[in-house]
């Protein structure tokens, strides 16, 4: 089955702030963007690479999709310059403030609008949201199984043989297509954009789909379609009975050990 087929692969990518370009201001409790630099979520680069590897072996087509503000177009163009065939930006004012439930609604609507799909690839998690919920949630909406934390893919005649890592072990599982995978960084090494790819990325027309194209009500998307709300944020502070030990290193060490003894700890 897998052999004969040209795979239709969808890769979900998210644009995230470049960790190197943000600084946290403790006084104001806000994130200061030193520059507007944004990158593709690192895990998603591995999802893309997994798509490229499978396309090389089996033939097929890769479509990248991303829900985000208009700037997310840059992330899609980068994916095309690395080798993706098609891209769609999912962008609409109404999408802002989406939690994972609302995000999967938009992603699922977009995937269902594509001519068809055999495989959906996601990163294990995003470094900004850090939920790891979008992949499995999306699979649920698409009514297909999901396998998370994949770090090895083997192809068999009828199915994929996947190794997935857990915090305390690993499983090898066999699954037929269609399926959604979320991938670990150890799966592969992402490629760099090629010159040819960059040229193609420049000229490729990338459609933008909003509520109207996706047949969604604005109220189902973004903040309005999200059951969860952030009601409070606070700067983390820890109270401690602070004592700075003084003297020479030896004196400090001795003072420490005395105190630990008093706590019954040394």
């Amino acid at each position: 089955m897998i052999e004969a087929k040209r795979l239709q692969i969808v890769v979900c990518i998210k644009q995230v702030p470049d960790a190197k370009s943000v600084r946290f201001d403790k006084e104001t409790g806000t994130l200061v963007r030193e520059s507007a630099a944004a990158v593709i979520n690192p895990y998603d680069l591995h999802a893309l690479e997994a798509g490229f590897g499978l396309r090389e072996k089996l033939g097929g087509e890769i479509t990248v999709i991303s829900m985000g503000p208009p700037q997310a177009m840059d992330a899609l163009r980068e994916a095309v310059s690395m080798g993706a065939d098609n891209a769609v930006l999912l962008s609409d004012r109404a999408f802002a403030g989406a939690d994972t439930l609302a995000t999967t609604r938009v992603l699922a609507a977009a995937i269902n609008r594509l001519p068809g799909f055999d495989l959906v690839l996601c990163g294990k998690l995003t470094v900004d949201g850090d939920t790891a919920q979008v992949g499995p949630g999306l699979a649920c909406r698409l009514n297909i199984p999901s396998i998370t934390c994949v770090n090895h893919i083997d192809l068999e005649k009828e199915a994929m043989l996947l190794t997935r890592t857990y915090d305390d072990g690993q499983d090898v599982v066999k699954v037929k297509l269609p399926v959604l995978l979320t991938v670990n960084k150890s799966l592969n090494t992402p490629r760099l954009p090629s010159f040819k790819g960059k040229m193609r990325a420049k000229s490729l027309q990338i459609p933008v789909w909003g509520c109207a194209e996706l047949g969604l009500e604005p109220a189902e998307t973004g903040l309005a379609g999200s059951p969860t709300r952030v009601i409070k944020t606070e700067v983390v502070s820890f109270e401690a009975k602070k004592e700075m030990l003084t003297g020479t290193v030896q004196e400090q060490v001795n003072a420490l050990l005395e105190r630990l003894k008093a706590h019954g700890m040394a």
Partner: protein
Amino acid sequence: MTQKNTGIWVWCETHENAMTSVSRELLSEASRLALKRGTVTCALIFGSDIALLAKEAVSFGADRVYLVDHPALSSFNDDIFTAILTDLARQYRPEIILAGATDRGLAFIPRVATSLETGLTANCIGLDIREEDGVLLQTRPAWEGNLMATIVCAEQKPQMATVRPGVLKVSEPDHLRQGEVISVECNQEWLTTNIEIISSSRSINTGSSNLAEAEAVVCIGRGIGSGKNLEMAKEVAALLHAEIGATRPITDEGLLDKALQIGQTGVNITPRLYIGFGVSGAMPHVIGIKNAEVIVAVNKDPKAPIFEMSTYGLVADVNEVLPAMLKALKGEG
């Protein structure tokens, strides 16, 4: 009329017919919340040959245990676990569902939440309940751990959250506690799946769990400098009966095993004593140590943030502190 949702559910992950520690943490917390809310705590245990676990779940706070015991459940299967929990939640309508933010929990709980069209908060590190309306207050790190966000899902039921292992306090088990055990017949429909488990191995590497439960922890930060210092720090740890832990740069570089990483993306620890050697005290790291009783920091930079939260601070060079400590601990000082 729609029936009201009641009860706090905990999905109890099992390992070789034992409950995982995060399951005990969640049951303890759920029963504290249930008391506040005036409702019941229910444990959900799926597995093969797990009947004995019901008693343990009750001792940690479950008032009711739903057991689904079937040979097909001996290893984790995303499809099957999703189907069972979703169906039971539809049938019994809990007010809250909690699960550990472990790789298995994170693999299927989002599917359950999506099926139920309800909100889910990932990787919480604190929970509370608003008594008047039963809204679950879910605290989790945001913005790379620099902020704590409180998240609610006020309009939809059940309210769902995954909670990081090692942050909630486990209660003393009460072996005399009584609870109701409900054996749920395994519905054949639940077992339909396209996922076939070929092999399943769980590492006996208890490195991480030792760390999570250690009484004392010596943490290695990037300031440790050399391999020689690392060996000395290990010796100090041995003399203090402490486990070794590390910050992310140390495990990223492969100097120590990934399982030893402490913090937001590693293990949360609750030792009586934590000593950090060359640890700066970045927020994602200290989130994992905030429950330590005594925090000791050794850092040559007096402005290092770790000093703001340490019980005892030594502004000193690890190159000098380590030999001095070894000497003193060996009684040669």
